[in-house]
């Protein structure tokens, strides 16, 4: 009785293996023939690579503060340049331009901020010899935007200007980043010398 089962076993086993083999080969044939095309590169949007702050004051040369980060979230840190020193105890008119330089020609993001000015606000944190910043523009609701501003310098020395762009902040707010909330699109710190 026992012996008679042996050939049965074998045939079952081989049948099972055969069936499995067919199924597997089918599976692999279909998958291998799946010759994939190369993926398309992602066209990134909402990228701001460059912030250019122009400070003008009658009688002294324009000062350009710029931060440029062409690899976006990549490992390269932004390149920050300050074109010159500020003059002590003066008032500068400031304006901001934002660009996406990963596209050619560069896309002007400033216009997007202007269109949706109620959803955006720049915050300025002056320190050291940069004594103060006041807004000189308003959105439709009479709240500040910060694309234009006025900057005053104190006595000669070193100073810094931290510029933060928030989108969807609470508006109006008390002028502090904590109160404003929202999300940070730009946060750059410019070290300057006032002489």
């Amino acid at each position: 009785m026992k012996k008679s089962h042996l050939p049965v076993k074998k045939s079952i086993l081989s049948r099972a293996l055969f069936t499995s083999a067919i199924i597997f080969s089918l599976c692999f044939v279909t998958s291998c023939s799946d010759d994939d095309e190369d993926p398309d590169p992602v066209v990134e949007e909402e990228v701001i690579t460059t912030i250019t702050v122009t400070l003008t004051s009658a009688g002294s040369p324009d000062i350009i503060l710029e931060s440029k980060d062409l690899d976006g979230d990549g490992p390269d840190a932004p390149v920050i340049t300050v074109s010159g020193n500020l003059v002590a105890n003066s008032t500068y008119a400031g304006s901001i331009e934002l660009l996406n330089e990963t596209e050619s020609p560069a896309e002007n993001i400033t216009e997007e901020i202007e269109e949706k000015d109620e959803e955006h606000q720049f915050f300025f944190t002056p320190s050291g010899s940069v004594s103060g910043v006041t807004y000189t523009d308003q959105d439709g609701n009479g709240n500040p935007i910060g694309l234009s501003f006025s900057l005053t310098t104190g006595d000669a020395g070193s100073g810094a200007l931290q510029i933060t762009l928030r989108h969807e902040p609470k508006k109006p707010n008390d002028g502090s980043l904590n109160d404003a909330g929202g999300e940070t699109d730009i946060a750059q710190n410019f070290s300057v010398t006032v002489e």
Partner: protein
Amino acid sequence: MRFYLVLIFTCVAGNTSFAQDCNSILFGEVIDFHDNTVLENATITITGKNLSTTSDEYGKFNFKTLCNGVIELEVSHPNCRTQFISIAINGNTYQKIRIEHHLEELNEVKVVGNEQKNTNSSQEEKLSKEDFEKSSGKSLGDALKNMTGVSSLNTGANVVKPVIQGLSGSRVLVINNNTRMQDMEWGQEHAPNIDINANQHISLIKGAAALEYGGDAIGGVIVLKPLPIARADSLYGKTQLNLFSNGRGGNISTSLTKSFESGFYLKAQGSLKRLGDIEAPEYILSNTGIKENGISLSAGKRDFVQGWEGYYSFFKTYIGILASSHIGNTDDLITAIESPTPLIINDFSYTIDKPSQEVTHHLAKLNYYRRFTGFGKLNVQYDFQNNRRFEFDRRIGDNADNASLDLKLSTHTVSSTIQLDSKKEFELKLGVLGRFQKNFANPETRVRRLIPDYNKYDFGAFVLGEFLMQPNLTIDAGIRYDFTRMNAKKFYRKSSWEERGYDEDFSQLIINDAGTQYLVNPIFDYHNVSAMTGLQYNLKENQTLKLNLSLAKRAPNPSELFSDGLHHSAARIELGDLRIKNESSRKISLSYELNSQKWGFVLAPYLNNIKNFILAEPNDLQFTIRGSFPVWSYRQTNALLLGTDFSLYNNWSSKIRTNHKFSYVKGTDESTNIPLINIPAANLNNSISYSNIKWNNFIVTLESQYVFEQKRFPPNITVFSPQEQREKELNINTPPPAYHLLSFDASSKFSIQKKNDLSIGLNITNITNTNYRDYLNRLRYFVNNQGRNISLRLIYNY
């Protein structure tokens, strides 16, 4: 063969002779279909004559003074399905009767208390029906937390990843109705896409011993199976409704089963869940609602000899991610960590806004099995899964409604197992598996892909054996081989490519230079050999000792290899590494178990030594125009996890019972001797329950859960805060303090149409509305956990 000859002979003879000779004797033998062993104590009755006898120890029986002609026998045996057999009596007749004694295909008749386990020697736990019903409105991760040694890695209340003995993600396999879930388990904020109401039989294997399901279960395996379907003409259903005060919503789940005596069945199940914003004790957790739908359909036929099943399930979940957790950069993270209350608190709402996740999962499978007499059982299965994940962020402009992450993962799997169980002393199981998986990352998101397009090929084969050495000693052993080929196509920024040093090691992988980035085609092969062995030794009638040794290997997942860039919603840069190799775990687990009417316990210590353990930690900062971001880099090290699970119960009287559970795990990076990140804190759980059957099966339970503070964690990182113009410590790793929670549950059963067909329960979690944060909740930087939640459940069986 002899049996068939006898049968043919008797049939032919039966048709030709009708002489009224009533001195014939029927000699019979009852044997097991399955392994040809004789069956004692089978009851054999001649229908219509009230003549009855039982088989002796050799399976033999006889009836004397039978008249020639056709008679019908009714053959029954404990644990077997009753069979009716027609026999032609023509003189002294011999009849062999085969009945089915092994009943795993006919689960409904199985003896209670003899629960079939997935492994012999491994630490294994099953979710009781009561615990399941209490968890029906929750996620799989929350339901599993009823088990000792299981915790969860959360992103809020609705994204819950199970953590088994300190390990989660790709180290935990989820087997849904015999199909391994393929649902992007690599992401920390990706929960299993499972409706627990679809497959309500839930068990958990701690560790890699269940080689049948995969060789890479370094953490463990969660096995979800459908409830067994009775083989009888019947139509029945179950509906459960849960209502929750916290989130102000609930869920409803209904299943309907039509079964037939022939073994054919049809089953449909559906569930629906809606919750609004979850509430912490002192504020609303804005944008934490959930909408979830699940449908499952199955049809099949289960017979002893063969059977098939077609199964389809659909799961869709739409989950809001806490509004205040969406942050811009390190400064925002510092602000959020230091703020005692979240920065965004809106009024309660059911609306799910951005950030959010929307995931759909389709699973379809076809399964066929056939059993061969005296040999075993062959099982063949094909399954297809399609997982689509959208993650939405708050965006501006034309892309405001465009997802930031859009991945489509399709998987085809063919598998076959052969189970050789005809011998009493041993059982062998062999299996092979082939799998093809394709991931597509949609570039239309206009956000750089976090996970690239890839094709993955898997092949696996295993042999498992279980040997009964002595009546009280069973040994099991198994070996498995898995091959994985990962073929990905990914764009790397040239700056990233060089910064990672890939230009030196992997320059041959570049297939296209696309200006600022390279298109790269890594094809990596991984060979994994996994093995396990163990024993189960019954010391005395009620004491069991189990020892299990396992070696498991896991190939790196796409996230560990390819992550490269900013994870927007988490405000962190994640960096995988192409150099990552497979990790391998060697685990020893021991369990000593005592079970008696009065009391019982399980003590289960384990040691898991993982070579080339893959982990991600915050280790650096990266500067961009948006400020700086913490960088989480994947690296490999040797890790040691040492822990123990302990549970104890005592029946103080027939009505009062207490349960006690404790689990502790210590994880160390052996190369640096620094604690591992995200290891759950020790926790102690005590409960007391009172039950009284006379009062409509009334059960009331009070439970206390104490979670210790995790004192072992990797150091924080120091960052420069431009806002404060100074270096400061970012408390990104510091665990929150210990906490204690109380919960309450009461339930009763009532009889409407059938006995105990209606069950009503009341459950309160976090009774004292305690403010607390959990170390393994990614939102702990921003908000407290859920406050008090009162829920009502109604279960109706019909």
